[in-house]
């Protein structure tokens, strides 16, 4: 029932949203982060790997897209895809190092490698140091669609988001996705069944990094800016927070989480540094009391409601 009514309703809402009082820039920001969080959730939710350094793919791709579009003058669509490709290559390199450890070490390794990328971005010439790459042009998409207007760009971003979301949905429900879940539940057993666990993990990692790169590249077109904020460890923390708020391992959770956190940041922008404190408090409250996140708690409640206790 939810699927038949809910999904068309959500789609309709997404299509009319800019006309009913939502700012297109706000919506685009939320969609970029929703995509980023979905990509992150693919790892934590379905392979059980907590990456604490996903900002390196997001930010690295943001720089790559901004540089390609602004300095090399490549078309916008190539720039965004190029960003995703850079994310994938970084994912391949980082992934092949990081998957050698599990659990808590995996988190520390990804965090440390992301910090290395941050220092690289701080020192490299093409990233513009503290200024970042500013005034990235919004050239017509495919030479046809004028994306200098926010409304048009919103629909482009929505299309990118939906395509990536479908890809993630298909991945999770494919045989490949089932193997990933098997690894999450019992890695030793998956190995003994003959699965090359490391290859599966690496493929999931690369996919997640590429989609994070897609999100980062799109973001640098939307805001016409790629800066150090995108590669900082705080950004890695934010995507963890979004996924945690929405619900780790749920399909819609990261989307909900991203909208909640971006909305919160918009309203709390005037209180400055306190945003950090609020985010910290949300972390603590969720970890202590609502580990399933918003969507996870609703789903659990729904399951109890729809199927009354049988014992």
């Amino acid at each position, binding site marked *: 029932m939810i699927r038949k009514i809910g999904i068309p309703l959500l789609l309709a809402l997404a299509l009319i949203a800019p006309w009913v009082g939502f700012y297109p820039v706000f919506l685009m920001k939320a969609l970029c982060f929703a995509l980023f969080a979905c990509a992150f959730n693919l790892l934590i939710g379905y392979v059980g790997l907590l990456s604490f350094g996903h900002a390196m793919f997001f930010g690295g791709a943001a720089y790559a897209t901004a540089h390609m579009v602004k300095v090399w003058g490549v078309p916008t669509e190539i720039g965004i895809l190029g960003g995703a490709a850079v994310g994938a290559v970084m994912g391949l390199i980082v992934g092949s190092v990081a998957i050698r*450890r599990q659990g808590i070490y995996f988190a520390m390794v990804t965090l440390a490698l992301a910090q290395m990328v941050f220092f690289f971005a701080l020192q490299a010439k093409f990233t513009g140091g503290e200024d970042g790459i500013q005034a990235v042009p919004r050239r017509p998409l495919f030479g046809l669609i004028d994306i200098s207007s926010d409304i048009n760009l919103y629909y482009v971003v929505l299309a990118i988001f939906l395509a990536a979301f479908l890809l993630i949905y298909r991945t999770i429900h494919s045989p490949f996705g089932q193997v990933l879940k098997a690894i999450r539940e019992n890695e030793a057993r998956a190995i003994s069944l003959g699965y090359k666990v490391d290859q599966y993990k690496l493929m999931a990692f690369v996919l997640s990094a590429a989609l994070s790169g897609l999100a980062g590249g799109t973001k640098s077109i939307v805001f016409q800016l790629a800066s150090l904020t995108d590669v900082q460890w705080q950004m890695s923390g934010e995507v963890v927070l979004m996924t945690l708020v929405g619900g780790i391992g749920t399909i819609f959770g990261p989307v909900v989480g991203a909208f909640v956190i971006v909305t919160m940041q918009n309203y709390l922008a005037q209180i400055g540094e306190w945003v950090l404190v609020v985010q910290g408090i949300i*972390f603590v409250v969720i970890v202590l009391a609502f580990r399933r996140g918003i969507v996870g708690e609703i789903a659990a409640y729904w399951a109890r409601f729809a199927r009354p206790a049988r014992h």
Partner: protein
Amino acid sequence: MFELLGVPPQALFGQLLLGLINGAFYAMLSLGLAVIFGMLNVINFTHGAQYMMGAFCAWMLLKFLGLNYWFALILAPIIIGAFGILLERLFLRRLYNLDHLYGLLLTFGLSLIIEGVFRNQFGSTGQPYDNPLPGGQNLGFMFLPYYRAWVVVASLLVCLATWFVIERTRLGAYLRAATENPTLVQAFGINVPRMIMLTYGFGVGLAGLAGVLAAPIYQVSPLMGSNLIIIVFAVVVIGGMGSILGSVITGFALGVVEGLTKVFYPEASSTVIFVIMAIVLLVRPAGLFGQTR
């Protein structure tokens, strides 16, 4: 003026000393992380924030109570350790039966809160803290400030004392036994939850002590912890958390390597530790002193 490997010796030994000092902090912090991880199975992300609090504690003791550095050296670790015990009682205790990752997420949230509060209170610029041991000794090939020598010696002493307590005393034996099998140790009548609590307090106190030692060298700033903790994580991955002496040696060694990089190839000095981490992971995934578990 003679030269060593194409570098004036003043610069070489100066950076070596700086490296040793950074190494002293890496060693003390990664030691605390390892001790906490051993007992609680939690990676204490708050460690950097607690180090920062140690420095601020010393600064506040001086500013508001007029207590000098040497009092702070004793008082600050106790205050910060007590604060750690409070955190353990209130929050961490509830997570012991869950996936370790929740401990990481919780302590990450706590560090955001602590850092945010300090940034609101004190801004992002650093507060100076007067050097309690001014002056130094000219060794001919380099100038050795007394305070820096004291930091290296003090941290070595603290690390060795920790090693001695854990590896050579009865209390340490209980601790190591409880790390291996808490249920069994509890069955022998030892209060394991209290031991866990005190261990966390001790590890956090070490971070606080490192903060006090750091206060006269670096500016006392709310940001001093978050930048350091990520490097310390890399140090922990390189060393592995299996052995106490291992983390101490790794900490000092990496500090020195970082210092040398500053002399010979300054552009890479901020990334060299992460590169070493990547190489170690490829060659010896469990870390230099770690055992695979």
